[in-house]
């Protein structure tokens, strides 16, 4: 028994126009990881590898202690996967799907499924083909959640949900974490959702992981400094500066390694520190991606 829900080391997967390379990732049980990246960054590819829907060219993948893809059957009993391109039977009702999933998975929790029906505002007699996009997304989530899987792999689970349904989903996801043996990895464009419920945050861009750490230290490291630079003063080169934007006598410094020493370095050089701003996860994300792209271009 391992206390890591996900363990990925040196994973690569090459396609003609896209490659995932050198992916390293760990997610302990009892935690939520938010996977954030622009379109085409490789989020879905990574999640599909975790689910063994595609196999990595190289590297080790362990899911709930099972080596993937070799032991995928054992792992999948305990993994719940939801993605936007999953299809249900259009002519089947939601109730038919619930009975179908319950017949396969012994862990199906019927009372919990009833609670979820109410929370998501769905009815068992609804035919899937008559559901709206958001309702289909909720139906898929219900079928997964009611199995009570130990690990949830969710590819953009909040996309297409209205604000009320999104809130209900976040409530359910946090409820999963009541049990310290369970874990969630979800990808999202909605950095607010990620910032709110994630313990771990991983940024991915162009097939590479550009940053991954616990959320609190992530947000704590990044700051924007507003400086006034008098004539004749040159700002020193300081380690951990991601972006430096000078306009007239004012400068904005973006850092991913904020510290008192960093502030002092500018003040000692003759600049006046006007403000130290915290950054939202979205601002951090954009700054991080831009910096990583600049670095790789040079």
């Amino acid at each position, binding site marked *: 028994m391992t206390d890591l829900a996900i363990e990925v080391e040196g994973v690569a997967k090459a396609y003609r126009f896209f490659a995932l390379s050198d992916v390293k990732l760990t997610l302990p049980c*009892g*935690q*939520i990881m938010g996977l954030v990246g622009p379109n085409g960054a490789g989020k879905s590819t990574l999640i599909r590898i975790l689910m063994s829907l595609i196999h990595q060219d190289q590297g080790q993948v362990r899911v709930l202690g099972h080596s993937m893809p070799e032991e995928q059957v054992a792992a999948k009993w305990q993994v719940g996967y939801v993605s936007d391109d999953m299809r249900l039977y259009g002519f089947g009702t939601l109730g038919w799907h619930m009975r179908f999933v319950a017949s396969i998975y012994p862990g199906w929790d019927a009372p919990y499924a009833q609670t979820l029906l109410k929370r998501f505002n769905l009815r068992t007699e609804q035919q899937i083909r008559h559901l709206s996009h958001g309702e289909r997304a909720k139906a898929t989530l219900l079928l997964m959640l009611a199995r009570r899987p130990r690990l949830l792999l969710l590819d953009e689970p909040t996309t297409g949900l209205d604000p009320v349904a999104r*809130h209900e989903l*976040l*409530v359910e996801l*946090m*409820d999963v*974490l*009541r049990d*310290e043996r369970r874990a969630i990895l979800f990808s999202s464009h909605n950095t*607010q959702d990620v*910032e*709110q*419920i*994630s*313990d*771990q945050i991983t940024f991915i861009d162009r097939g590479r992981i550009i940053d991954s750490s*616990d*959320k*609190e230290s992530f*947000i704590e490291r990044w700051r924007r400094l507003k400086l006034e630079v008098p004539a004749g003063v040159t700002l020193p080169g300081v380690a951990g500066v991601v972006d430096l934007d000078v306009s007239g006598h004012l400068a904005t410094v973006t850092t991913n390694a904020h510290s008192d020493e960093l502030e002092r370095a500018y003040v000692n050089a003759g600049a006046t520190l*006007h403000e130290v701003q*915290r950054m939202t996860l979205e601002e951090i994300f954009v700054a991080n991606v831009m910096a990583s792209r600049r670095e790789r271009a040079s």
Partner: protein
Amino acid sequence: MHSFITISHADRRPMYLQIIEQIRHRIAVGDWKAGDELPSIRALAVATQVSVITVKRAYLELEREGVIVTRQGKASFVAENVDLGGQLRREELDQHLAAAAQIGRELALTPEELIERLRMRMTEGRKKS
């Protein structure tokens, strides 16, 4: 259940600070008394839909300040301190004064001018009440 803590996304302060402030407020108004047990980190995280790590950070910070105590690394309790409410209010006041001092510096006000403005505000308050 413990929906007494609400996180605002319009609030620019980080979530752990919002949690700290609301717990202090609970204690300051006397809803939570010395020796009362706080919800577990995980339970509070589930109830507020905020990650475990954020709630853990808020609790660690409150522990460092002596507002709460954690026994055997398990349950947390409100610290035994008679004047916690007053102390917390004074700390809050200090924060506001620090912010005022910062703006004063930006406007190039002298300390005397700033104090005079504060005096005016205090007189205004008396007239209203």
